[in-house]
């Protein structure tokens, strides 16, 4: 649902999206310590597959996006993870166009990084608080992605508030379910493997 297809965005935004996402991916890659590569790989494949989990909702269906959860688990590394996940989704599943990949990566990756910051900043120490913060981060990720989607489509000549309203209303069930899924996942990880919730170490640590 939340993928921009080929030919929707003007050329300048397409190229700009690629430039911004290439820069962010390089920054993100610099922030990954080699010991964290397996964790990044697992979260990337979870993100890649989550888009196939369809939630029936009335006449239509929406699918999970999980930028919030990826951000909470990976922090700055989430951008690279989401970019790779989106690349493979667009090649293998035909989700979103290959020319719009840069814009799609910005649309999903930047909210993920923001959610990662949000989670690390507010997670506190108790398991319950971590679960609640994780759930909020999950919901926030989808909300921000919808807002970014509206912002990008505005450059294609759409009305920002109109698109934002439609995207947010269409994603209300997804936002709720993402929040619940992320909250439970983070609560579970906080109980069994709290080390996974520590911020990803940077390359120079």
């Amino acid at each position, binding site marked *: 649902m939340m993928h921009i297809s080929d030919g929707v965005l003007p050329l300048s935004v397409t190229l700009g999206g690629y430039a911004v996402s290439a820069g962010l991916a390089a920054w993100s890659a610099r922030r990954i310590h080699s010991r964290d590569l397996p964790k*990044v*790989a697992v979260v*990337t494949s979870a993100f890649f597959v989550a888009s*196939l989990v369809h939630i029936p909702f009335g006449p239509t269906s929406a699918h999970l996006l999980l930028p919030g959860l990826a951000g909470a688990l990976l922090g700055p590394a989430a951008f690279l993870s989401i970019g790779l996940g989106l690349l493979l989704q667009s090649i293998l599943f035909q989700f979103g166009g290959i020319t719009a990949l840069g814009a799609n990566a910005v649309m999903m990756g930047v909210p993920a990084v923001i959610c990662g910051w949000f989670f690390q900043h507010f997670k506190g120490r108790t398991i319950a608080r971590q679960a609640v913060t994780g759930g909020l981060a999950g919901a926030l990720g989808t909300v921000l992605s919808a807002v970014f989607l509206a912002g990008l489509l505005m450059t294609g000549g759409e009305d920002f508030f109109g698109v934002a309203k439609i995207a947010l209303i269409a994603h209300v069930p997804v936002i709720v379910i993402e929040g619940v899924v992320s909250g439970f996942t983070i609560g579970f990880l906080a109980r069994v493997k709290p080390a996974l919730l520590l911020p990803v170490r940077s390359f120079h640590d």
Partner: protein
Amino acid sequence: MTRMQKGLTIGLLCLFLAGLSGPLWAQAPPENSTGEVIALLKEQNSALSRDLRQIQREIAALRADLDKPGVKDVFAGIGYIFGLFGAAAFAASRRKG
């Protein structure tokens, strides 16, 4: 009566019936062979077109299914991800060693 004569009679009968005007047909439903044949043909026609429509619907559903990513695509993607990160880990370990 020879066979030829019989055929001729039936043919004449058919011609006569074909010449009958519409309202007469409407008043009395056809009790004869031509009417039956036409009814049968119509029935078969509608049955065939019903089947055809169903087949077309099935083809459309199949095409929609083909567009959906299958298990193969999912595992291909997971393989790509692990492979790429494995290569990255290998490069990182070489750089350190």
